């Protein structure tokens, strides 16, 4: 395993990793994503509504978590590759105020494509994404 700041040639090596990213998921961040995406589901924005739904607080959009994790790869590979596929299962909520850490690793690579596994973890060890994968193709 080796961390490289930028993917400078395609394909990457199996085991190569973009730098991990860590971010506090504030209500301001969730609200910014709601405005940018158009998803104003109150479970993400209204603490009273979220509590009625059985949650301790508002939670991040699943697509915000996935977007943050994918951004890590896309920033790393921007000069050499484009993303042809992204997939995941949303397996745990990300409560407001929690810290989200995202990382990725190249699991397969050929001249035509590369596969990366995405990992995301919050403070209590829960993993909000599972079976999360990204496929890159060379530019």
């Amino acid at each position, binding site marked *: 395993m080796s961390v490289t700041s930028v993917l400078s040639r395609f394909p990457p090596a199996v085991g190569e990793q973009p730098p991990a*990213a860590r*971010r506090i998921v504030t209500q301001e*961040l969730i609200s*910014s*994503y709601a*405005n*940018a*995406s*158009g*998803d104003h*589901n109150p479970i993400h924005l209204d603490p009273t509504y979220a509590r009625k*739904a059985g949650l301790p607080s508002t939670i991040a*959009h*699943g*697509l*915000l978590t*996935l*977007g*943050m994790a*994918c*951004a890590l790869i*896309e*920033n790393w590979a*921007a000069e050499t590759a*484009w*993303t*042809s*596929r*992204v*997939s*995941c*299962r*949303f397996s745990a909520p990300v409560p407001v105020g929690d810290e989200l850490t995202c990382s990725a690793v190249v699991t397969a690579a050929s001249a035509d494509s590369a596969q990366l596994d995405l990992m995301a973890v919050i403070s209590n060890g829960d993993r909000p994404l599972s079976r999360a994968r*990204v496929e890159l193709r060379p*530019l």
Partner: protein
Amino acid sequence: MPFNLNCEGRSYQAAPEVLDRRRHAQYALAVGAAQGLGDHFVHPLACFAAVYLLWPVVPQLFSDPEVGLDVEHLLHGEQEFSFERPLGFEETITPEGVISRAERRRGMIFLEFQCSGRDEAEEVAARSRSLFVVREAG
């Protein structure tokens, strides 16, 4: 209104969406891909498809009385985006969505929703597959 298990095949159209660079900049800032609104991107981020492909049609699904989804108990279970080619800014994509699977298992409803986005040449350039799960009351 109870959920309609016979809703497979129901489809939804939305107006064409321009992959607007300014809107993308706001999105990129929100997901931490950019430090500022002026950051340069060659191609839109993959999950920006939530904005131009998925979200234009999902509200129609959620509010469709012929489907009867209980959105208060709805969870986003899975998501996939795929692309035929790298998309460019200021391209126009026309999204449409279809319910590809609806079933009840173990007191939950599983609804698979597939979207496709056609470019100006009427070719499918982007696809989305979502799995929504609804916990049934009681």
